[in-house]
Protein backbone atom coordinates (compact mmCIF):
# COMPACT_ATOMS: atom_id res chain seq x y z
CA UNK A 1 0.00 0.00 0.00
CA UNK A 2 2.80 2.38 0.97
CA UNK A 3 4.57 1.56 -2.26
CA UNK A 4 1.44 2.25 -4.26
CA UNK A 5 1.05 5.70 -2.67
CA UNK A 6 4.73 6.39 -3.35
CA UNK A 7 4.20 5.41 -6.97
CA UNK A 8 1.13 7.65 -7.23
CA UNK A 9 3.05 10.61 -5.79
CA UNK A 10 6.02 9.95 -8.06
CA UNK A 11 3.89 9.99 -11.18
CA UNK A 12 1.32 12.49 -9.95
CA UNK A 13 2.16 14.98 -12.71
CA UNK A 14 1.65 12.39 -15.40
CA UNK A 15 -1.56 11.16 -13.75
CA UNK A 16 -2.91 14.71 -13.57
CA UNK A 17 -2.06 15.15 -17.26
CA UNK A 18 -3.92 11.95 -18.13
CA UNK A 19 -6.86 13.09 -16.04
CA UNK A 20 -7.11 16.41 -17.89
CA UNK A 21 -6.80 14.68 -21.27
CA UNK A 22 -9.54 12.26 -20.28
CA UNK A 23 -11.83 15.17 -19.40
CA UNK A 24 -10.98 16.83 -22.73
CA UNK A 25 -11.66 13.71 -24.79
CA UNK A 26 -14.85 13.12 -22.90
CA UNK A 27 -15.92 16.68 -23.79
CA UNK A 28 -14.86 16.24 -27.43
CA UNK A 29 -16.71 12.98 -27.92
CA UNK A 30 -19.71 14.23 -26.01
CA UNK A 31 -20.15 17.54 -27.82
CA UNK A 32 -18.74 17.33 -31.34
CA UNK A 33 -20.80 15.50 -33.96
CA UNK A 34 -17.89 14.53 -36.15
CA UNK A 35 -15.52 13.18 -33.51
CA UNK A 36 -18.43 11.50 -31.80
CA UNK A 37 -19.47 9.60 -34.91
CA UNK A 38 -15.82 8.65 -35.53
CA UNK A 39 -15.54 7.32 -32.01
CA UNK A 40 -18.84 5.49 -32.15
CA UNK A 41 -17.89 3.99 -35.52
CA UNK A 42 -14.70 2.56 -34.05
CA UNK A 43 -16.61 1.34 -31.02
CA UNK A 44 -19.36 -0.31 -33.05
CA UNK A 45 -16.89 -1.85 -35.48
CA UNK A 46 -14.91 -3.46 -32.68
CA UNK A 47 -17.91 -4.64 -30.72
CA UNK A 48 -19.64 -5.63 -33.96
CA UNK A 49 -16.82 -7.90 -35.07
CA UNK A 50 -16.73 -9.59 -31.65
CA UNK A 51 -20.48 -10.06 -31.70
CA UNK A 52 -20.28 -11.42 -35.23
CA UNK A 53 -17.88 -14.14 -34.10
CA UNK A 54 -20.05 -14.89 -31.10
CA UNK A 55 -23.14 -15.04 -33.32
CA UNK A 56 -21.37 -17.38 -35.75
CA UNK A 57 -20.72 -19.83 -32.92
CA UNK A 58 -24.19 -19.66 -31.39
CA UNK A 59 -25.75 -19.88 -34.83
CA UNK A 60 -24.08 -23.23 -35.35
CA UNK A 61 -25.28 -24.46 -31.99
CA UNK A 62 -28.82 -23.31 -32.77
CA UNK A 63 -29.02 -24.85 -36.23
CA UNK A 64 -31.57 -27.40 -35.10
CA UNK A 65 -33.94 -24.74 -33.80
CA UNK A 66 -33.44 -22.55 -36.87
CA UNK A 67 -34.26 -25.46 -39.16
CA UNK A 68 -37.46 -26.07 -37.30
CA UNK A 69 -38.45 -22.40 -37.48
CA UNK A 70 -37.71 -22.29 -41.20
CA UNK A 71 -39.84 -25.34 -41.84
CA UNK A 72 -42.71 -23.72 -39.97
CA UNK A 73 -42.29 -20.51 -41.90
CA UNK A 74 -42.28 -22.43 -45.19
CA UNK A 75 -45.53 -24.03 -44.25
CA UNK A 76 -47.04 -20.66 -43.40
CA UNK A 77 -45.82 -19.09 -46.63
CA UNK A 78 -47.21 -21.94 -48.71
CA UNK A 79 -50.63 -21.13 -47.39
CA UNK A 80 -50.41 -17.55 -48.54
CA UNK A 81 -48.53 -18.20 -51.79
CA UNK A 82 -49.95 -17.00 -55.10
CA UNK A 83 -50.63 -20.48 -56.33
CA UNK A 84 -53.01 -21.09 -53.46
CA UNK A 85 -55.14 -18.07 -54.32
CA UNK A 86 -57.75 -17.44 -56.89
CA UNK A 87 -57.15 -14.69 -59.38
CA UNK A 88 -59.60 -11.85 -58.87
CA UNK A 89 -58.45 -9.07 -61.22
CA UNK A 90 -57.17 -9.55 -64.71
CA UNK A 91 -55.72 -6.21 -65.84
CA UNK A 92 -53.67 -3.47 -64.25
CA UNK A 93 -54.89 0.10 -64.37
CA UNK A 94 -52.73 3.15 -64.74
CA UNK A 95 -54.47 6.07 -63.08
CA UNK A 96 -53.21 9.35 -64.50
CA UNK A 97 -55.55 12.23 -63.88
CA UNK A 98 -53.24 15.22 -64.39
CA UNK A 99 -50.49 15.92 -66.86
CA UNK A 100 -47.87 16.99 -64.35
CA UNK A 101 -47.40 15.75 -60.83
CA UNK A 102 -45.43 17.63 -58.22
CA UNK A 103 -42.13 15.85 -57.57
CA UNK A 104 -40.08 18.26 -55.46
CA UNK A 105 -41.07 20.84 -52.87
CA UNK A 106 -38.64 23.41 -51.50
CA UNK A 107 -38.41 24.87 -48.01
CA UNK A 108 -36.42 28.08 -47.52
CA UNK A 109 -34.14 28.01 -44.45
CA UNK A 110 -31.70 30.42 -42.89
CA UNK A 111 -28.16 29.26 -42.10
CA UNK A 112 -27.34 29.86 -38.44
CA UNK A 113 -23.92 28.22 -38.30
CA UNK A 114 -21.41 27.50 -41.04
CA UNK A 115 -17.71 26.77 -41.45
CA UNK A 116 -15.35 26.21 -44.35
CA UNK A 117 -11.94 25.78 -42.70
CA UNK A 118 -12.16 22.28 -41.25
CA UNK A 119 -11.79 18.94 -42.95
CA UNK A 120 -15.40 18.14 -42.09
CA UNK A 121 -17.66 21.15 -42.28
CA UNK A 122 -21.24 21.23 -41.09
CA UNK A 123 -24.03 23.77 -41.54
CA UNK A 124 -26.84 24.35 -39.07
CA UNK A 125 -30.28 25.47 -40.33
CA UNK A 126 -33.02 27.27 -38.40
CA UNK A 127 -35.76 24.79 -39.29
CA UNK A 128 -36.19 21.22 -38.19
CA UNK A 129 -38.48 18.23 -37.91
CA UNK A 130 -41.51 20.42 -37.08
CA UNK A 131 -41.15 22.03 -40.51
CA UNK A 132 -40.98 18.68 -42.22
CA UNK A 133 -37.23 18.30 -42.61
CA UNK A 134 -35.97 14.72 -42.49
CA UNK A 135 -32.45 13.28 -42.62
CA UNK A 136 -30.97 12.68 -46.11
CA UNK A 137 -32.84 15.50 -47.78
CA UNK A 138 -30.80 17.58 -50.21
CA UNK A 139 -29.92 21.21 -49.55
CA UNK A 140 -29.32 23.64 -52.42
CA UNK A 141 -28.32 27.29 -52.42
CA UNK A 142 -29.04 30.06 -54.91
CA UNK A 143 -26.00 29.08 -57.03
CA UNK A 144 -25.65 25.36 -56.52
CA UNK A 145 -25.74 22.37 -54.22
CA UNK A 146 -24.89 22.88 -50.54
CA UNK A 147 -25.17 19.56 -48.73
CA UNK A 148 -27.31 16.78 -47.30
CA UNK A 149 -29.31 16.94 -44.04
CA UNK A 150 -27.73 14.73 -41.40
CA UNK A 151 -29.56 15.16 -38.09
CA UNK A 152 -32.81 16.94 -37.25
CA UNK A 153 -34.12 18.21 -33.93
CA UNK A 154 -37.61 19.71 -33.58
CA UNK A 155 -36.46 23.23 -34.49
CA UNK A 156 -33.03 22.85 -36.09
CA UNK A 157 -31.19 20.60 -38.46
CA UNK A 158 -27.54 19.97 -39.27
CA UNK A 159 -26.28 19.55 -42.80
CA UNK A 160 -23.19 17.72 -44.06
CA UNK A 161 -21.71 20.43 -46.24
CA UNK A 162 -20.25 19.78 -49.69
CA UNK A 163 -17.02 20.75 -47.92
CA UNK A 164 -16.94 17.49 -45.98
CA UNK A 165 -14.42 14.87 -47.04
CA UNK A 166 -17.08 12.17 -46.87
CA UNK A 167 -19.58 14.02 -49.08
CA UNK A 168 -20.34 12.43 -52.47
CA UNK A 169 -22.75 13.56 -55.17
CA UNK A 170 -23.38 12.22 -58.61
CA UNK A 171 -22.46 14.83 -61.23
CA UNK A 172 -22.46 15.16 -65.00
CA UNK A 173 -21.01 17.44 -67.62
CA UNK A 174 -23.77 19.66 -68.97
CA UNK A 175 -24.88 18.86 -72.54
CA UNK A 176 -23.10 15.49 -72.62
CA UNK A 177 -24.87 13.45 -69.97
CA UNK A 178 -21.81 11.41 -68.97
CA UNK A 179 -21.75 11.24 -65.23
CA UNK A 180 -19.17 10.86 -62.47
CA UNK A 181 -18.77 11.32 -58.77
CA UNK A 182 -18.13 14.72 -57.19
CA UNK A 183 -16.35 15.24 -53.88
CA UNK A 184 -14.21 17.72 -51.95
CA UNK A 185 -10.53 16.87 -51.51
CA UNK A 186 -10.20 18.81 -48.26
CA UNK A 187 -7.92 21.53 -49.61
CA UNK A 188 -9.31 24.84 -50.79
CA UNK A 189 -12.94 25.61 -50.04
CA UNK A 190 -13.69 26.81 -53.56
CA UNK A 191 -12.42 23.80 -55.51
CA UNK A 192 -13.53 20.18 -55.70
CA UNK A 193 -12.92 17.05 -57.75
CA UNK A 194 -15.10 15.12 -60.20
CA UNK A 195 -13.98 11.60 -61.01
CA UNK A 196 -15.03 8.82 -63.40
CA UNK A 197 -15.83 11.00 -66.42
CA UNK A 198 -14.99 8.70 -69.38
CA UNK A 199 -11.98 9.77 -71.42
CA UNK A 200 -13.61 9.67 -74.86
CA UNK A 201 -15.84 12.69 -74.34
CA UNK A 202 -14.50 16.16 -74.95
CA UNK A 203 -14.44 18.56 -72.02
CA UNK A 204 -12.86 21.95 -71.85
CA UNK A 205 -12.09 24.55 -69.23
CA UNK A 206 -15.22 26.42 -68.17
CA UNK A 207 -17.69 23.59 -68.85
CA UNK A 208 -20.53 23.44 -66.36
CA UNK A 209 -20.94 20.49 -64.01
CA UNK A 210 -24.52 19.79 -62.86
CA UNK A 211 -26.34 17.20 -60.79
CA UNK A 212 -27.78 14.09 -62.42
CA UNK A 213 -30.93 13.41 -60.43
CA UNK A 214 -29.94 9.74 -60.19
CA UNK A 215 -30.00 9.87 -56.42
CA UNK A 216 -33.21 10.89 -54.77
CA UNK A 217 -31.41 13.66 -52.90
CA UNK A 218 -30.92 16.44 -55.45
CA UNK A 219 -33.15 17.42 -58.39
CA UNK A 220 -31.65 17.20 -61.85
CA UNK A 221 -29.72 20.09 -63.46
CA UNK A 222 -28.68 21.96 -60.32
CA UNK A 223 -25.32 23.66 -60.75
CA UNK A 224 -22.29 22.25 -58.94
CA UNK A 225 -19.31 23.97 -60.49
CA UNK A 226 -17.27 24.82 -63.55
CA UNK A 227 -14.24 22.96 -64.88
CA UNK A 228 -10.94 24.53 -63.78
CA UNK A 229 -8.56 21.90 -65.13
CA UNK A 230 -8.62 18.21 -65.97
CA UNK A 231 -6.11 15.44 -66.41
CA UNK A 232 -6.09 11.85 -67.58
CA UNK A 233 -4.19 9.73 -65.07
CA UNK A 234 -1.82 7.37 -66.95
CA UNK A 235 -3.31 4.00 -67.91
CA UNK A 236 -6.80 5.04 -66.87
CA UNK A 237 -9.87 5.69 -68.94
CA UNK A 238 -11.41 8.29 -66.69
CA UNK A 239 -10.67 11.96 -66.26
CA UNK A 240 -9.94 13.54 -62.91
CA UNK A 241 -11.51 16.97 -63.21
CA UNK A 242 -10.81 19.85 -60.87
CA UNK A 243 -13.84 22.13 -60.55
CA UNK A 244 -14.60 25.50 -59.08
CA UNK A 245 -17.82 25.44 -57.06
CA UNK A 246 -20.40 27.90 -58.37
CA UNK A 247 -21.75 28.37 -54.86
CA UNK A 248 -19.48 30.38 -52.57
CA UNK A 249 -19.79 28.44 -49.30
CA UNK A 250 -18.32 31.25 -47.29
CA UNK A 251 -20.93 33.77 -48.41
CA UNK A 252 -24.29 32.02 -48.10
CA UNK A 253 -27.22 32.85 -45.86
CA UNK A 254 -30.37 31.26 -47.22
CA UNK A 255 -30.75 27.77 -48.65
CA UNK A 256 -33.56 25.49 -49.79
CA UNK A 257 -34.17 22.07 -48.36
CA UNK A 258 -35.44 19.81 -51.14
CA UNK A 259 -38.14 17.31 -50.37
CA UNK A 260 -38.59 14.59 -52.94
CA UNK A 261 -42.25 13.56 -52.79
CA UNK A 262 -41.60 10.35 -54.70
CA UNK A 263 -38.54 9.32 -52.73
CA UNK A 264 -40.30 6.53 -50.87
CA UNK A 265 -41.83 5.20 -54.05
CA UNK A 266 -38.49 5.20 -55.89
CA UNK A 267 -36.69 3.70 -52.90
CA UNK A 268 -39.16 0.89 -52.49
CA UNK A 269 -39.14 0.09 -56.17
CA UNK A 270 -35.33 0.02 -56.31
CA UNK A 271 -35.11 -2.03 -53.17
CA UNK A 272 -37.54 -4.52 -54.60
CA UNK A 273 -35.52 -4.76 -57.80
CA UNK A 274 -32.27 -5.30 -55.94
CA UNK A 275 -33.74 -8.00 -53.77
CA UNK A 276 -34.77 -10.22 -56.65
Amino acid at each position, binding site marked *: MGNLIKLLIRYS*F*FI*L*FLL*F*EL*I*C*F*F*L*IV*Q*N*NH*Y*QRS*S*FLNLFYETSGSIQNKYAAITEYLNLKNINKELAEENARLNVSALESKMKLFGENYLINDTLFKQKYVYLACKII*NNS*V*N*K*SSNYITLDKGALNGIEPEMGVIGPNGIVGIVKHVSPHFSTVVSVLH*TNFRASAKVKNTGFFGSCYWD*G*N*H*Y*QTGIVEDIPSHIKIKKGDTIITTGYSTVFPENVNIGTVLSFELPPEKNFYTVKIQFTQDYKNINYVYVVKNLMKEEIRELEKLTEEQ
Partner: protein
Amino acid sequence: MNSNLFRYIFSFIFLILLQSFVLNNVQLSGYLNPYLYILFILSLPFDISKYTLLLLSFLLGLCIDFFLGTTGVHASASVFMAFCRPFILRVIAPREGYDTATRPRLQDMGVKWFIIYAFTLTLLHHLFLFYTEVFRFSHFFTTLGRSISSTLFTFILIFISQLFIFKKADSKS
Protein backbone atom coordinates in the same frame (compact mmCIF):
# COMPACT_ATOMS: atom_id res chain seq x y z
CA MET B 1 4.47 40.17 -7.49
CA ASN B 2 1.01 41.72 -7.63
CA SER B 3 1.75 43.59 -10.83
CA ASN B 4 2.99 40.32 -12.35
CA LEU B 5 -0.25 38.61 -11.41
CA PHE B 6 -2.29 41.38 -13.02
CA ARG B 7 -0.14 41.24 -16.11
CA TYR B 8 -0.78 37.51 -16.51
CA ILE B 9 -4.53 37.91 -15.96
CA PHE B 10 -4.57 40.70 -18.51
CA SER B 11 -2.63 38.72 -21.09
CA PHE B 12 -4.89 35.69 -20.47
CA ILE B 13 -8.02 37.71 -21.29
CA PHE B 14 -6.39 39.72 -24.07
CA LEU B 15 -5.08 36.64 -25.88
CA ILE B 16 -8.46 34.89 -25.70
CA LEU B 17 -10.26 37.92 -27.13
CA LEU B 18 -7.60 38.44 -29.81
CA GLN B 19 -7.76 34.77 -30.80
CA SER B 20 -11.53 34.50 -30.96
CA PHE B 21 -12.42 37.82 -32.58
CA VAL B 22 -9.44 38.69 -34.77
CA LEU B 23 -7.12 35.76 -35.52
CA ASN B 24 -9.91 33.27 -35.93
CA ASN B 25 -11.10 35.21 -38.97
CA VAL B 26 -7.67 35.10 -40.57
CA GLN B 27 -7.53 32.22 -43.03
CA LEU B 28 -4.57 32.21 -45.37
CA SER B 29 -5.32 30.17 -48.50
CA GLY B 30 -8.52 28.82 -47.05
CA TYR B 31 -7.47 26.82 -44.03
CA LEU B 32 -4.32 28.21 -42.40
CA ASN B 33 -5.26 29.49 -38.95
CA PRO B 34 -2.76 31.00 -36.50
CA TYR B 35 -3.29 30.05 -32.85
CA LEU B 36 -1.49 32.80 -30.99
CA TYR B 37 -3.20 32.13 -27.65
CA ILE B 38 -0.54 29.55 -26.73
CA LEU B 39 1.79 32.53 -26.20
CA PHE B 40 0.27 32.64 -22.71
CA ILE B 41 1.56 29.15 -21.85
CA LEU B 42 4.96 30.01 -23.33
CA SER B 43 5.24 33.20 -21.29
CA LEU B 44 4.46 31.74 -17.83
CA PRO B 45 7.44 32.04 -15.43
CA PHE B 46 10.11 29.34 -15.05
CA ASP B 47 9.37 28.61 -11.40
CA ILE B 48 5.62 28.04 -11.81
CA SER B 49 4.47 24.71 -10.37
CA LYS B 50 3.81 22.00 -12.93
CA TYR B 51 0.31 21.45 -11.60
CA THR B 52 -0.66 25.13 -11.86
CA LEU B 53 0.71 25.09 -15.39
CA LEU B 54 -1.55 22.17 -16.36
CA LEU B 55 -4.59 23.74 -14.73
CA LEU B 56 -4.05 27.17 -16.35
CA SER B 57 -3.55 25.60 -19.79
CA PHE B 58 -6.70 23.57 -19.37
CA LEU B 59 -8.70 26.71 -18.47
CA LEU B 60 -7.17 28.65 -21.37
CA GLY B 61 -8.02 25.87 -23.83
CA LEU B 62 -11.56 25.61 -22.49
CA CYS B 63 -12.10 29.37 -22.94
CA ILE B 64 -10.83 29.18 -26.54
CA ASP B 65 -13.06 26.15 -27.16
CA PHE B 66 -16.00 28.08 -25.77
CA PHE B 67 -15.53 30.89 -28.28
CA LEU B 68 -14.70 28.64 -31.24
CA GLY B 69 -17.43 26.09 -30.58
CA THR B 70 -14.99 23.17 -30.58
CA THR B 71 -15.54 21.76 -27.10
CA GLY B 72 -12.40 20.06 -25.78
CA VAL B 73 -10.18 20.14 -28.87
CA HIS B 74 -8.10 23.16 -27.92
CA ALA B 75 -8.19 22.25 -24.23
CA SER B 76 -6.63 18.84 -24.90
CA ALA B 77 -3.92 20.32 -27.13
CA SER B 78 -3.10 23.02 -24.56
CA VAL B 79 -2.89 20.48 -21.75
CA PHE B 80 -0.58 18.34 -23.88
CA MET B 81 1.62 21.37 -24.54
CA ALA B 82 1.74 22.23 -20.83
CA PHE B 83 2.67 18.63 -20.09
CA CYS B 84 5.60 18.84 -22.51
CA ARG B 85 6.86 22.24 -21.35
CA PRO B 86 8.82 21.11 -18.24
CA PHE B 87 10.61 18.41 -20.29
CA ILE B 88 11.53 20.82 -23.07
CA LEU B 89 12.76 23.36 -20.50
CA ARG B 90 14.94 20.69 -18.86
CA VAL B 91 16.43 19.60 -22.20
CA ILE B 92 17.35 23.10 -23.37
CA ALA B 93 18.34 24.47 -19.94
CA PRO B 94 21.44 26.71 -19.95
CA ARG B 95 24.49 25.32 -18.11
CA GLU B 96 23.97 27.34 -14.94
CA GLY B 97 20.22 26.61 -14.80
CA TYR B 98 17.38 29.10 -14.98
CA ASP B 99 17.58 32.40 -13.12
CA THR B 100 14.21 32.96 -11.40
CA ALA B 101 14.52 36.68 -12.10
CA THR B 102 14.34 36.05 -15.86
CA ARG B 103 11.28 35.05 -17.81
CA PRO B 104 11.05 32.85 -20.92
CA ARG B 105 11.23 35.76 -23.33
CA LEU B 106 13.33 36.62 -26.32
CA GLN B 107 15.07 39.50 -24.56
CA ASP B 108 15.99 37.44 -21.48
CA MET B 109 17.04 34.15 -23.01
CA GLY B 110 18.44 35.04 -26.43
CA VAL B 111 17.24 34.39 -29.96
CA LYS B 112 18.55 30.83 -30.37
CA TRP B 113 17.11 29.57 -27.09
CA PHE B 114 13.77 31.22 -27.73
CA ILE B 115 13.42 29.84 -31.26
CA ILE B 116 14.07 26.27 -30.08
CA TYR B 117 11.73 26.67 -27.11
CA ALA B 118 8.82 28.34 -28.88
CA PHE B 119 9.02 26.40 -32.12
CA THR B 120 9.15 22.96 -30.49
CA LEU B 121 6.22 23.65 -28.20
CA THR B 122 4.16 25.30 -30.96
CA LEU B 123 4.79 22.32 -33.25
CA LEU B 124 3.78 19.83 -30.51
CA HIS B 125 0.63 21.83 -29.78
CA HIS B 126 -0.40 22.11 -33.43
CA LEU B 127 0.28 18.45 -34.23
CA PHE B 128 -1.87 17.39 -31.29
CA LEU B 129 -4.54 19.95 -32.19
CA PHE B 130 -4.90 19.03 -35.86
CA TYR B 131 -4.83 15.27 -35.31
CA THR B 132 -7.46 15.61 -32.59
CA GLU B 133 -9.60 17.70 -34.91
CA VAL B 134 -9.35 15.18 -37.76
CA PHE B 135 -9.61 12.28 -35.28
CA ARG B 136 -8.27 9.63 -37.62
CA PHE B 137 -5.05 8.78 -39.44
CA SER B 138 -6.46 8.27 -42.93
CA HIS B 139 -5.39 11.72 -44.22
CA PHE B 140 -2.07 11.48 -42.39
CA PHE B 141 0.11 13.62 -44.65
CA THR B 142 -2.52 16.28 -45.42
CA THR B 143 -2.95 16.82 -41.69
CA LEU B 144 0.82 16.83 -41.17
CA GLY B 145 1.19 19.51 -43.86
CA ARG B 146 -1.58 21.59 -42.38
CA SER B 147 -0.13 21.44 -38.88
CA ILE B 148 3.40 22.31 -40.02
CA SER B 149 2.28 25.24 -42.17
CA SER B 150 0.07 26.56 -39.36
CA THR B 151 2.97 26.12 -36.93
CA LEU B 152 5.16 28.36 -39.08
CA PHE B 153 2.42 30.96 -39.23
CA THR B 154 1.80 30.93 -35.47
CA PHE B 155 5.53 30.93 -34.74
CA ILE B 156 6.09 34.01 -36.89
CA LEU B 157 3.32 35.81 -34.98
CA ILE B 158 4.85 34.76 -31.64
CA PHE B 159 8.23 36.01 -32.74
CA ILE B 160 6.78 39.35 -33.84
CA SER B 161 4.96 39.73 -30.52
CA GLN B 162 8.31 39.21 -28.73
CA LEU B 163 9.88 41.97 -30.80
CA PHE B 164 7.14 44.32 -29.61
CA ILE B 165 7.94 43.59 -25.96
CA PHE B 166 11.64 43.95 -26.76
CA LYS B 167 11.18 47.38 -28.18
CA LYS B 168 9.03 48.58 -25.29
CA ALA B 169 11.58 47.44 -22.73
CA ASP B 170 14.34 49.13 -24.72
CA SER B 171 12.63 52.48 -24.84
CA LYS B 172 12.00 52.36 -21.10
CA SER B 173 15.63 51.86 -20.14
